[in-house]
């Protein structure tokens, strides 16, 4: 998933990975400082269960690569109805 696809496609691709138990309440994109560096996508939302969140996270990791999805440990503290946040690093090929 690279920036040259267009932001709307990047967002669509991310949101398509979401399952019904996960609700996104905020997402943002920030262009990287380096010309061939990485752009950042910040995601936050609510998940009904930990498993649903992990399923979503794993789908993102499969798409972007393990190291490209940063998930704080706090995302795993609660088992049900919790807020989560993620940081995705997207390669900027512009």
């Amino acid at each position, binding site marked *: 998933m690279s920036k040259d696809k267009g932001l709307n496609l990047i967002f669509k691709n991310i949101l398509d990975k979401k399952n019904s138990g996960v609700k996104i*309440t905020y997402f943002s994109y920030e262009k990287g400082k380096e010309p061939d560096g990485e752009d950042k996508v910040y995601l936050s939302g609510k998940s009904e269960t930990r498993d649903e969140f992990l399923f979503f996270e794993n789908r993102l990791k499969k798409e972007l690569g393990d190291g490209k999805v940063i998930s704080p440990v706090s995302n795993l503290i609660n088992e049900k109805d919790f807020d989560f946040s993620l940081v995705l690093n997207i390669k900027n090929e512009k």
Partner: protein
Amino acid sequence: MKSKFFITIFILFALIFSAFAGWFYALSKISSERKAILELRKTILRGEKNKIDEKSLVRLIDSVKKEKEIVESVFLKEDDLIRLIKGLESIGESSGVSLKISAISSEKNAVSKPAVSFSAKGTFEQLFQYLYFLENLPYLITINKVSFQKEEDIKEITQENNKKNILTSSWQALFNIQLESYEN
């Protein structure tokens, strides 16, 4: 007899003197005219040289006209910025979002490119469509930042004399874009 001789001599000298004076006058006149002619010739030459320079300059301008247009199209002018703002508003209307431009940083120098910050409110679909339209505007735009935030509002509605509070959700998007060029 003697006086007649002197008168003749005097007249002769006077004639010779006047002939010399006339000759000197004519000579000085000719030389001054010559100088004037030389000056005129120099002026004509200078004029011709200027004409040639002007013609070659016009030819040079004509030859770089295309390049000039290309370069001018790269740098944004104030009119282009107004057109962009109108474009942003127009796609806002098309997608049904309410748009609010919060800041425009337009520097006079060509090095720093103008940046526009604005917010848009609407449903998620409307904002997503707006983002799509934004990326397809006929400008070379860099999206520096964009954020989508879900907002929940409590709306009061009246149904058969009963007031009810319902939770409605809308989205707000904040954009920060930078204009690279008028042409995409």
